[in-house]
């Protein structure tokens, strides 16, 4: 199962979803992306949500580096292969998680 958890206060999830859909298409997969909106600090705690967006494949966060950050309604920090900061995971992270 592929889950994309997001917080509406961060504008990054549509871009993350589009990239994820593109990677899935390239890999010839037609998995459904289960979208879950996180609306409160309590939900963030309950869902172990370290920021928006968070993508999990079969329950495993595709970005181990940030997976255990404090649950929070925030934009999540990712790092691209060249070490630049990004508000969404890299294509490479998605591909690695889905292969």
């Amino acid at each position, binding site marked *: 199962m592929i889950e994309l958890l997001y917080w509406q*206060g*961060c*504008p990054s999830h549509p871009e993350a979803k589009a990239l994820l859909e593109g990677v899935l298409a390239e890999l010839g997969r037609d998995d459904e992306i289960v979208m879950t909106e996180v609306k409160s600090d309590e939900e963030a705690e309950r869902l172990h949500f370290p920021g928006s967006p968070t993508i999990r494949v079969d329950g495993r966060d595709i970005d181990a580096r940030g997976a255990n950050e404090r649950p*929070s309604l925030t*934009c999540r*920090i990712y790092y691209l292969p060249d070490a630049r*900061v*990004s*508000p969404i995971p890299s294509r490479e992270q998605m591909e690695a998680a889905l292969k």
Partner: protein
Amino acid sequence: MSIELGTEAPSFQLPSVDGSDHSLDDYRDAKLLALVQYCNHCPYVLAWEGRLIALAGDYAGKGLQVVALNSNDAARYPEDSFERMKERAEQLDFPFDYLYDESQSLARTLGAERTPEVFLFDWERRLRYHGAIDDSRDVDAVSRSYLREAIDALLAGQEPPVTETESVGCTVKWR
């Protein structure tokens, strides 16, 4: 609702990471003043941070003063505390002032909504450009450098080619 173009810069007196308080009047010698709603924790701020540092350095001798403002609720976002601001500024040797708007009053007066979000004031301290630093958080995809274009135009005595753009970033974290 953000302040409208032509609005006079609001007065303020806020603590800086340099250990002193800074007021609007402290920047009276600058031809242009860029107030940038800012913070530590937001990936959009971090994505643009290198460009803002470069811009502040490039125009420092040309009359531009960049002032970053952090108004986020540090109780909920500890990364944005005053202590962490000091650490960030020291770590990256910010070439601009970094002020702590703990009461959030300046952000509310400006009508700031996002980080990063730019308010560029001219020599009369009237708002002349409001919005994004440029048109992409991805430095390799930038095609319009709105803030640089506005600064260049104003320094040349001309109208900024673009005066308002949408700021893309994290929301200001209100109490």
